[in-house]
């Protein structure tokens, strides 16, 4: 059952709103970042490896 009378009451949380929302917001943001970081690293590594292979091929064709 929804514990609050209105959406405004839900946001305000009887005065505890800022604390609760800050705790949830920061924690979930850190967790999202934890999950995204390795994916971005992988993508960067793949791009780097691809570029290296391409550079090698170009050098091979130039000869």
């Amino acid at each position, binding site marked *: 059952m929804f514990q609050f009378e209105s959406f405004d009451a839900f946001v305000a949380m009887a005065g505890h709103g800022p604390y*609760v929302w800050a705790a*949830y917001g920061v924690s979930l943001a850190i967790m999202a970042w934890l*999950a995204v970081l390795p994916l971005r690293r992988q993508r960067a590594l793949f791009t780097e490896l691809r570029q290296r292979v391409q550079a090698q091929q170009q050098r091979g064709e130039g000869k």
Partner: protein
Amino acid sequence: MWQWFHKLGSPRWFYDISGKFLPWLALASVVLIVTGVVWGLAFAPQDARQGNSFRIIYIHVPASFLALAGYYVMAAAGAVGMIWKMKLADMVMIAAAPLGAALTFIALFTGAIWGKPTWGTYWIWDARITSMLVLLFLYIGIIALSRSFSTRETSARACAILALVGTVNIPIIYKSVDWWYTLHQPATIKLTGAPSMHPDMFKPLLVMILGFYCFYALVLLLNTRTEILQRERRTNWVKELAAGK
């Protein structure tokens, strides 16, 4: 059995097989955490004494659980890597360190915010908070050490030793901090301890704990896979993988 063990030690095999688990783990952690957050924020009853600030427990407790469990995961992986010279275990250990440190930070941060409406101050030297802080320092030590070596192999071995030394010391540290706290417990601040949990409060907590476990496994796998790719970047299978993307 040994063949299986050998296979598990092969980074490439692990990369392939873990790729199949990833979507399911990601789905499970998102569903569980979203359910838990909505349930905890909107539908769980508020605590009689602490009011709505009590809702922070749904982040704080799972994060604290995994912060400590994560150190043991790291040390166990380090031990396996050291005893059986298993490369994969080394990579898991390196992958676990920043994840554990981040969860420890979340536990400390939510604890501090929770403290303000509950005790009237962001920080008190409570036994559990102090132990968490020491745990964060242990994690930071591991991360700092892992970044100072030039080769990944040496770095993993060194971190494994430090993690094992830290692990056998953690119970001593925790016990001593507990004892220290009972000695100095300020009379003005009475800790209520864990609020007596009504089942309606406890169910979302259980969902969140499960969700955090899935999330931990997910990020540990992701970090390990990244570590595998970086270490094996010169091998053909990684190059082919990169070309295929």
